[in-house]
C-alpha cells in the first residue's frame, strides 16, 4: 500500500509543480539580489538574506527562511488535506477500502506519502538554493556565518509574504551570535539539522490537515482549515496578551532552526520546537486514526 501511495504521489503532476514553485521563489530572489547587489541590511528582511552576498553557501538557509512562512505550509496543507478527503470526493476511497485496504494501513500509507512530500520539498529547496547560491551569488568569501540573521519573524501573516516584518526583534536575539567562521562541513551539518527541524515542523501542519481530511470530504476545506489554524497561531504568537498560551502554539518555535546557525548552537528552542511538534503530530494523528477507523464511509 505504501508503494501504491508513493506511486500516486510521484505520478501526480501537482507534486512536481508545487515543488518547482517552492524552489522558484528563492531563485527569483537570488537573481534580484545578484543583479542589484542589494541585500537587505542586517536585521531587516528575511533571515540570512543580508549575509548571502558574502557567502553564497549560506543561501540554502536564506531560501528556507523565504519559503517557510507561506509556501511550504500551503503546499503541505494542500497535499495532506487532500490525502483522505481527495480519495473520498473522487469516490476512490470506498474502492480502496473494499479491496480491502485496512483503514489504519491506508492512513499510515498516506502519512508516509505526506512525509515523503515534505522531505522532497525541503530537500529540493535546499539543493536548488545551494546551487543557486554558489552559482549566482558566488562561493564563500570567508565571511562569518550568522553575523546577522535578521527579522526573525514567523509570518504567514497576510501581506508579509517572503519578507516578513520583525516579530522576534532582531537586536535582542542576535547579539549572542558569535562571529566565528564555520567550515563547509560544519555548515552542512547545520543545514541538515535545520532541514530536519523544518520537516518536523511541517509534519505538525500535515497532522492537522490529515485529521481534517478524515472529517470532511472536501480537500480544500481540510487544507484551508489547517492553514486557518496556523494563521490563528501566528496571530496569537505575536500577541502580548496571549503570552500564557504561546509556548503551546504550533508556530511558536517554527523559526528556532535559525539557532542551528549560531555558534555554539542554541539548543533550547530547538528542543522545545521538536517537542511541541511531536505532541501535535501524535495528538492529531491519533485523532485522525480514531475518527477514520470508526467512520461510516458514505462517499
Amino acid at each position: 500500500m505504501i508503494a501504491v501511495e508513493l506511486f500516486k504521489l510521484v505520478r501526480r503532476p501537482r507534486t512536481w509543480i508545487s515543488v518547482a514553485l517552492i524552489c522558484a521563489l528563492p531563485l527569483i530572489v537570488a537573481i534580484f539580489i545578484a543583479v542589484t547587489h542589494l541585500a537587505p541590511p542586517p536585521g531587516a528582511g528575511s533571515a540570512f538574506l543580508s549575509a548571502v552576498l558574502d557567502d553564497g553557501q549560506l543561501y540554502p538557509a536564506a531560501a528556507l527562511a523565504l519559503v517557510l512562512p507561506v509556501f511550504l505550509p500551503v503546499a503541505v496543507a494542500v497535499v495532506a488535506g487532500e490525502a483522505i478527503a481527495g480519495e473520498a470526493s473522487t469516490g476512490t476511497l470506498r474502492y480502496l477500502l473494499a479491496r480491502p485496504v485496512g483503514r489504519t494501513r491506508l492512513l499510515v500509507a498516506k502519512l508516509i506519502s505526506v512525509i515523503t512530500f515534505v522531505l522532497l520539498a525541503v530537500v529540493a529547496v535546499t539543493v536548488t538554493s545551494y546551487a543557486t547560491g554558489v552559482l549566482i551569488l558566488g562561493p564563500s568569501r570567508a565571511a562569518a556565518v550568522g553575523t546577522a540573521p535578521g527579522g526573525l519573524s514567523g509570518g504567514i501573516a497576510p501581506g508579509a509574504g517572503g519578507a516578513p516584518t520583525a516579530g522576534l526583534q532582531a537586536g535582542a536575539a542576535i547579539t549572542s551570535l558569535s562571529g566565528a567562521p564555520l567550515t563547509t562541513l560544519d555548515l552542512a551539518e547545520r543545514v541538515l539539522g535545520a532541514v530536519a527541524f523544518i520537516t518536523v515542523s511541517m509534519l505538525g501542519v500535515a497532522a492537522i490537515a490529515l485529521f481534517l481530511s478524515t472529517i470532511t470530504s472536501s480537500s480544500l476545506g481540510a487544507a484551508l482549515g489547517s492553514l486557518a489554524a496556523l494563521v490563528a497561531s501566528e496571530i496569537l504568537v505575536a500577541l502580548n496578551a496571549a503570552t500564557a498560551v504561546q509556548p503551546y502554539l504550533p508556530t511558536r518555535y517554527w523559526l528556532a532552526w535559525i539557532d542551528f546557525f549560531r555558534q555554539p548552537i542554541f539548543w533550547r528552542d530547538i528542543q522545545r520546537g521538536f517537542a511541541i511538534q511531536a505532541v501535535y503530530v501524535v495528538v492529531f494523528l491519533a485523532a485522525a486514526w480514531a475518527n477514520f477507523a470508526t467512520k461510516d464511509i458514505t462517499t
Partner: protein
Amino acid sequence: MITTSNVTKRFGHVEAVRSVSIDIREGDRYGLLGPNGSGKTTLVRMLLGLVYATSGEISVLGERIPRHASRVLPEIGALIEQPAAYPHLSGRANLRLLDAAGPGSVRRTRHARVDEALEQVGLAGIDRRPVRAYSLGMRQRLGLAAALVRRPRLLILDEPTNGLDPRGIRDMRDLLISLNESGVTVFLSSHLLPEVSALCTRIGVLDSGRLVLQESLADLQQPTGRVLVSTDDPERAVAALDGQVEHRDGQDLVVRSSDAAALNAALVGAGVRVHSLAVQRRSLEEIVLDVTGSGSDQFGLAVDLATAASAEGMAGE
C-alpha cells in the same frame, strides 16, 4: 453467501435500514429492488464493511462483517454507486494500482488479469488516454473491470447499469449471466425493474428500509390461470369459449384457462383465427408495486406508464 439478520442502520434520527434479513445463496443472481432512498446503497455498503450497522449481524462468504471483512473482501468484486478512478491515469494504470492496493493480489498474474478483465467488459482496445477523457459508459465498464480483476467468487454491484446505453446494458447482462454460469454469485441492486426482470433469478424488495419481499422470480411469476388471446374474430371466440372469457377489449380477450394448448386447439377447432396466444404472468412491476404500496411514482416514469397501461387493460375486471 450473504446473510443478514435483523440489520438496522440509523444515521442520526433517520433509520435508513430497518431490521433487514436477506439471504443470498451460492449461484444466485439476486436483485435487490427498491425506490431511490429505500436503503439499498446503505445495505450494500454494510455488506462491504464501509458502513457499520447499528444493530444486527452480517455474514458474507461465511465470515462476520465488518470484523473479518479483510478475510473475504479479496474474493468479492464490488461496484458501489458510481465507478471511481484516478482521472489523470489511464484505465490500465488504474486497474493495476487498485489491484496492487491491499492484500490478496498476486503480482505475477496482475498483467494478465487486468487484460482479461478489460477484455471481459469490452475495453480490450483502450489506449493510454487518461480516464478523465472517458465517456460515462466507458467509466462504468472500467468500474466493472475493476470488480473483476481479482476473479471474485461474489460480485456485489450497486446500480451496475447506470450510465450505460442499451447496447452497454445488454453487454453487461450477458457478461453477468455468463459469469454466473461459470460459478460467480451475483448480487445487484437496482431501481430499474426491467433490468432485474431480465437478469435475476431471485429478488428482494426494500421499501423505506424494510425488506418487504424475498422470493425466487420463477415462483413469483407463476401463471395466473389466464390466457391472453388476440383474434380478428372475437365474437366467434367468445361464443366458442362459452363463459371462459373474463374480459374483452376489441380484438384482445382475457380467457380463464390453465391449459393454453387445449384452449388453442378449441379455438382452432371452432374455426377462429388466432393472432397470438400467451399465458398471463404477473409482471415484476405489478409484484413490486403490490408489496411497496404507496410511492409508486418513485419507481420512475417507465413503470408509471406500464401500470397505467395495465390498469387500463384490467378496467373491465
